[in-house]
């Protein structure tokens, strides 16, 4: 069979990324311009600033990725872009650039849901096996999704309030660490002991999560201790917090795997780059005989490659989109594609 090349663009949050992906599994070239240094100044992503930077960088990123791949847009079989979920202003820049390329080069356009991208990041290098349960853990999502095959998505668990990554970022901020907080909490936790008592996280029969309670608890603990003139052992607090959150992720994932009697799990999203969480989930899976798929760390955070990997599945199934596709800040994966 002929090789299929897709140029994929991702701009849903603070990373302008473009990638050339072959057959949905080979990362021919990827260029990502991250805005982390800019948003660090404000302690988090400022949507208007992010959108402005995407507009400044979009063609530079596309140009660079084509140079690195040593290919032209005319060599592509399709152009893909993230259309949802994400920051509207940011999404629109990448989406319009992709549509412009489709117009000029007369190529089919494929809109990709960012969350499908995170799941498909697992296809780079190694193929996913179905049926599987997908645990998406990122700054905006904490979802357990049951997938009968590569094109069906059934939500079986979600966070009732904060996403796990959001919770990590907030706790990092409370502990005085710069944005992005997740990796910093992980680093700090390595130096500490699990010595603080943490509240019980949602522990019911459902596969849902809740992280707002522990966030408030850490916030109150730090403030109360400070008001009483006490010292917070930051490393220990980070470690206790991470352990508690991880325990909840492990428990609920185990519950889902047993309930649906599934032998494959894939982890996706930015928080999947947290080694402690990766290892904890892996060892739980080993103990119940489940195979774990985890993307390489560089494919956990937002990138164009995963969008290309997802777009390939849509391409194979002839799911193309029109040029009147709009961006949407929040659209869940549903049934047979979107």
């Amino acid at each position, binding site marked *: 069979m002929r090789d299929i090349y897709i140029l994929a663009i991702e701009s849903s949050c603070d990373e302008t990324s473009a990638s050339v992906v072959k057959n949905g599994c080979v990362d021919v070239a990827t260029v990502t311009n991250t805005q982390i240094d800019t948003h660090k100044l*404000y302690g988090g992503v*400022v949507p*208007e*600033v992010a*959108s*402005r930077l*995407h*507009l*400044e960088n*979009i*063609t*530079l990123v*596309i*140009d660079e990725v084509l140079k690195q791949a040593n290919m032209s*847009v005319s060599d592509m079989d399709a152009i893909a872009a993230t259309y949802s979920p994400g920051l*509207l*202003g940011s999404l*629109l*820049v*990448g*989406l*319009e*650039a992709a*549509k*412009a*390329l*489709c*117009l*000029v*080069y007369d190529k089919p356009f494929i809109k990709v849901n960012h969350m499908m991208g995170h799941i498909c990041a697992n296809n780079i290098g190694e193929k996913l096996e179905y049926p599987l349960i997908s645990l998406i853990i990122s700054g905006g999502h904490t979802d357990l999704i049951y997938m009968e095959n590569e094109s069906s998505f059934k939500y079986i668990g979600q966070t009732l309030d904060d996403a796990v990554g959001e919770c990590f970022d907030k706790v990092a901020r409370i502990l005085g660490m710069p944005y992005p907080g997740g990796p910093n909490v992980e680093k700090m936790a390595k130096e500490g002991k699990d010595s603080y008592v943490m509240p019980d996280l949602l522990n019911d029969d459902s596969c849902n999560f809740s992280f707002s309670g522990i966030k408030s608890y850490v916030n109150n603990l730090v403030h109360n201790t400070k008001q009483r003139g006490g010292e917070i052992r930051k490393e220990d607090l980070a470690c206790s917090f991470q352990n508690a959150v991880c325990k909840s992720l492990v428990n609920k994932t185990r519950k889902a795997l047993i309930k649906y009697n599934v032998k494959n799990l894939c982890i996706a999203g930015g928080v999947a780059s947290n080694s402690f969480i990766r290892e904890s989930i892996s060892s739980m899976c080993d103990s119940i005989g489940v195979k774990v798929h985890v993307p390489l760390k560089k494919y956990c955070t937002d990138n164009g490659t995963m969008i290309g990997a997802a777009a390939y599945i849509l391409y194979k199934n002839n799911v193309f989109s*029109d*040029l*009147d*596709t*709009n*961006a949407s800040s929040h659209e869940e994966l549903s049934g047979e594609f979107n």
Partner: protein
Amino acid sequence: MFTLFIDTHGENIVVALCSQDDLFVKEQKSEFSHAVYLAPMIRDILKTNGVTFKDIKDIVAVNGPGSFTGLRIGLSEAKTIAYSLDIPIYLVSTLDAYLVSDGSLDAVSILCDNKGYYVKECIHGKMGSEVYLNDISDYNNKHVVLEKLDVRKVILYALKSERVNPHLVRANYVKNIEVLK
């Protein structure tokens, strides 16, 4: 050869093709849906008039002030097309566009948003600078131009300005946002 014109700063999207002899204009009212209309409008205006991208020699894009998101949709489209075709792009301010369309040597162009006014004055045919004001009573006695585009005039005016490398296309926001102050 044609110039492709794109204006997405306001509620109306304007796309046009302009050559020495022809001017084709397509206008579309769009409330918060520029992304739905823009790309199909460009596709359709080319198709209807039997023009292909090979016939486009340059692009003129209105780069603001105006709706931040609207501008970015238009400029992302414009700069990517210019980059793909390897053709020059010329940017024109919304306020200049209205002044030039009016043609008066002494006039003021005013564009309001929810909090204030973008203002530019033309005195004896010389363009002043662009400012964002909360009060425009100083301009009560001046000739304020209508928010109406004469596309051919705007294109001819823009083509006299400096061509911009597509990678360096920026929006002319004029107003600074809170965090950047």
